[in-house]
């Protein structure tokens, strides 16, 4: 399934060419991806959808440099990373990619600030500048005043915002979010979507979100749908909904933050 990059994306951040991923499980071969070609431009906000087993998770793992394709090429910022070794992939994850997970995946018994600093530990930033950078990222998600809190002292939405700050702190070109609202109630989910939209708009961040909820997908400017290891649909959404406005339209309720 091939589709041209939509207009407005001059330099592709991601470019997948004929991606194939085959797992061997015992005697069976599982063909998770069967030739996926797609481009994502800078500043796009993309929804990746599909039923479980469709290959979207495998696609995301390869996009996130957590995994390597069996064949095909994957170019990140124009550089072929599909054949790099483990250490080189770790370096790219550190510098170019931010991850947001469904289960937040914050380190327990570690403060919000220290959680945000974790990627910096493995990066080039000198130790003395890490606190300031992490605090800056925390204030972008509106949690500068919770820097000293532990994850157990934060609500789900706040934890996810700490996780987003952690994804932003190295100033990556790409943020990959895997079901970022899956563990949240609908109001908090809207808050997270509003935050991602704002970061996409204001910081020019390229964001790719895996979601199975059509409600969530309507906030993105483009939807990729996977099925049986193929990219079956690539649809631009010319008028994505504004999560912040929807949030404002909700009846007043006790707000967590």
């Amino acid at each position: 399934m091939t589709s041209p990059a939509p207009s407005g994306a001059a330099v592709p951040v991601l470019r997948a060419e004929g991606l194939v991923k085959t797992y061997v499980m015992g005697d069976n071969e599982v063909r998770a991806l069967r030739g996926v070609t797609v481009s994502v431009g800078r500043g796009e906000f993309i929804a990746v959808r599909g039923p479980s087993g469709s290959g979207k998770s495998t696609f995301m793992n390869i996009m996130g440099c957590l995994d390597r394709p069996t064949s095909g090429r994957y170019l990140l910022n124009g550089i072929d990373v599909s054949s790099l070794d483990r250490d080189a992939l770790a370096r790219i994850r550190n510098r170019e990619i931010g991850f947001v997970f469904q289960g937040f995946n914050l380190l327990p018994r570690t403060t919000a600030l220290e959680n945000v600093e974790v990627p910096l530990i493995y990066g080039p930033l000198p130790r003395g500048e890490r606190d300031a950078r992490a605090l800056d990222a925390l204030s972008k998600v509106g949690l500068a005043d919770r820097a000293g809190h532990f994850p157990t002292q934060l609500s789900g939405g706040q934890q996810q915002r700490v996780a987003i700050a952690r994804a932003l702190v190295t100033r990556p070109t790409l943020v990959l979010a895997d079901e970022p609202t899956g563990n949240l109630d609908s109001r908090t989910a809207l808050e997270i979507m509003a935050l991602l939209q704002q970061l996409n708009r204001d910081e020019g961040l390229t964001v790719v979100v895996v979601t199975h909820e059509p409600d969530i997908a309507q906030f993105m400017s483009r939807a990729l749908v996977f099925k049986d290891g193929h990219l079956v649909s690539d649809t631009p959404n010319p008028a994505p909904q504004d999560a912040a406005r929807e949030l404002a339209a909700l009846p007043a309720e006790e707000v967590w933050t």
Partner: protein
Amino acid sequence: MDLGLSLKLAWRALARNPLRALLTMLGVVIGVAAVVATLAIGQGARASVQAQIASLGSNVILLFPGTGPGSGGSRGAQGSSSSMTIEDCAAMARECPSVDKVAWSVRSGGQAIYGNNNWQTGVIGTTEDFFTIREWPVELGTTFTDSDVRNSARVAVLGATVVENLFGTENPIGQTIRIRNLPFRVVGVLVRKGSSAMGTDQDDTIILPGTTVQKKFLSSNAINFVYISAKSAGEINSAIEEITSLLRQRHKIRAGQDDDFFIRNQAEFASAAEATSKTMTLLLSSIAAVSLLVGGIGIMNIMLVSVTERTREIGIRMAVGARGRDILSQFLVESAFLSLLGGAFGVLLGVGISVLISNLAKWPTSVSPSSIALAFGFSAAVGIFFGFYPARKAANQDPIEALRYE
């Protein structure tokens, strides 16, 4: 990732489970304490053997009547044999050019009484030269003289322990004590020598003129042993040769027959003591090594558990850019830290045990900085060696699997 941060992370991981960390360390603590205490006892023993051998006096040769331990005869023979005479001793002093002084001696023992105090102690009967050869001067009063020996005078020179027990703080000089119910006048008190390598108190003794002991206590002219000093350390061997040929001649021993006496010098005492203490140290060290090994396995076990428990943390760290070697070093620093902390406790415990032993058992001990460094080095090595496998297991995790781990 720098070391300071690694240490901070390691400290935090351990502080999360202090009891577990302590129990894990215990093996290393015991191992290191055993190493430190063993070395302290060994070194203390060696130092005191050397001091004791030196306290024998310099260039000292000991001569025993009898056939000696090497020729199959029993050592008990030395006391009962009467093959040595006072004339032999005089001849040695006179005719052997390498010999400086000769002091024949007999050994006895008995109860000493002064006032209401009594004390069971050893008695050495000897001559005036004994004090010179043993380099053992008096602290108070004088030694007895050769004329006291000729006259079998009832005079006594006391060791410091005997004085303490009979006189307390009173000045014993000129007082009369009874030894085996015979009155003796105290003429001198010896300076304190302290305990020997074997733990015996050298100051728990009374020195009397040899002839007095022979006549009054032993009713025998036999000599138990002879202290001889060579003129210099380099002349010890020639002195031994001269004495041997003189005594063989005087005792009319034909060529091919065994000597009826045997000679020991400081070097032989030193090497015998050294060999004993080496064997002891080796034995205890192997126990310590086994304990360290067990401690290391304990560390490996807990680190494996810890790696499993923290699979998700490993996954998160890898996802945000930690390389395998970052994870490896994090876990290695943690196990080395655990082991070094155990080592530190072990050093403290080992020093404590050494102090306790030297106080309770009156064994001399000496904790040297090199033994502490050795113990630390060992525990660091144990931590790194046994931490490597779990750390590598952590570093080789697949980030996707690790992130999915529940």
